[in-house]
């Protein structure tokens, strides 16, 4: 009887060990950040969102927790990027989501720069200078590139230090355009922005702290005169455990 009990206990322990090494825990976090550019008539928001996922076995999980405790970082197993582009005018809001196929560092569009009434950017995936074409990014022409590189803008700190004619610096009424970073999260450590767009409407970022986490969901609102604020973007990207099904829905079947 005693021997039988021992065998049973051993079997249970082995089964638990096998299950712990085979069964996995899935995590997702969504990091965001981008730029808002506005003039007296309209505003553009370009918000990059990186969905990062990690999956570990129950056996590996305590190590992951300990590693984070001592200041380590586990790199994501899966990553998916997109850019949400929102155009806001006094009369409406138009939103597009552009998938970023290559998620390696720096591959998404960036360094958004207004020029000749258009928004130009650095698009490594398109091989260089690109511009926002209403519902997608498209490669800028050689002529546009030449004009942008050789353009002489009003003196502004950093504007003379441009890569491909673009700037990553904030802008203050440069040719009528201003630019600031926006929509970063999920850590609730960021300053939030309010931008007045020519007195026609206001864009504002708000944080909704998530209880007991230190993280926050990020919202962006449009406030038009005499109207209630309209939320045009929301992201709760705090790191969280998800089901295998949700994970696979986000990143595809693993």
């Amino acid at each position, binding site marked *: 009887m005693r021997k039988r009990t021992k065998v049973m206990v051993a079997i249970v322990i082995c089964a638990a060990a096998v299950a712990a090494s085979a069964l996995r825990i899935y995590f997702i976090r969504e990091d965001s950040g981008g730029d808002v550019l506005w003039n007296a008539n309209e505003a553009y928001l370009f918000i990059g969102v990186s969905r990062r996922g990690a999956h570990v076995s129950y056996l590996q999980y305590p190590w992951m927790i300990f590693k984070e405790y001592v200041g380590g970082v586990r790199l994501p197993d899966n990553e998916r990027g997109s850019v949400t582009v929102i155009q806001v005018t006094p009369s409406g809001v138009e939103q597009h989501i552009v998938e970023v196929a290559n998620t*390696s560092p720096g591959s998404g569009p960036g360094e958004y720069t207004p020029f000749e009434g258009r928004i130009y950017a650095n698009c490594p995936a398109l091989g260089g200078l690109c511009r926002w074409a209403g519902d997608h990014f498209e490669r800028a022409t050689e002529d546009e590139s030449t004009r942008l590189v050789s353009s002489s803008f009003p003196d502004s700190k*950093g504007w003379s230090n441009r890569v491909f004619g673009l700037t990553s610096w904030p802008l203050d009424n440069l040719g009528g355009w201003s630019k600031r970073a926006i929509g970063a999260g999920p850590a609730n450590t960021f300053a939030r922005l309010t931008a007045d767009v020519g007195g026609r409407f206001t864009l504002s970022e708000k944080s909704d702290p998530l209880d007991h986490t230190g993280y926050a969901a990020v919202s962006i609102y449009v406030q038009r005169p005499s109207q209630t604020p309209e939320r045009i973007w929301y992201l709760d990207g705090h790191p969280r455990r998800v089901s295998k099904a949700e994970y696979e829905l986000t990143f595809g079947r693993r």
Partner: protein
Amino acid sequence: MPLPLTPTCGNINAIELLTNQSLDSIFATYMQTFLPVISNNNSVMTFTGPGGARNINVTGPGQTLTIQLSGWKSLLQEDFQVLTERIDPVNHVISVVTLQGHPLAGWRYWRVYSIGTNDVVIETGAYDQPGPGLKNYSGYYIAKGDILLGWQQYLQFIQSRLHAPQGSNLHNTLGGIQLQTYPWGNPTLLEGYWDYPGTFTDYILDNVCQSTSCN
């Protein structure tokens, strides 16, 4: 708890890029702004400026930058901070010193320089030791690889944004100093080099504070 001898060691990540962009532009666009580590640009860490500002503009010594590591637990890991020490737009160098609460105690620099026509090197190096306490001491060994990965991403970000191919002059040497070959094999300089013998100590500290002894 008494700890064994505290390790103090240097580490360097570097990349050689073939680009016609000027050192001034690269320095201003990517290094003074810390663009490769703000927003969602790095999967290891996120930098913010004073007051949580996402636009960083490092122009002089004494500026505080906050670093947030990217974790998977629902509970936020603690932030930690560094203070700018050397901002040198002529030689294109930025250096920082860690502040109390940082898991490491020491310095880090970032630098871009030319080694030929349309041929630049961007590098970042650190000379540090664990912060006080057993937690930081164990983390120094357990998390050391993650630090290099974060800085590898920093360099890859700039490479990607410059649309620049890598050059081929950084084989086993940096700044005229030979890299030690380890029995377990050396990763590339882009992936990061640990300076166990201390060959690069003076080189790193010279970049940090233009002396072999920094404060």
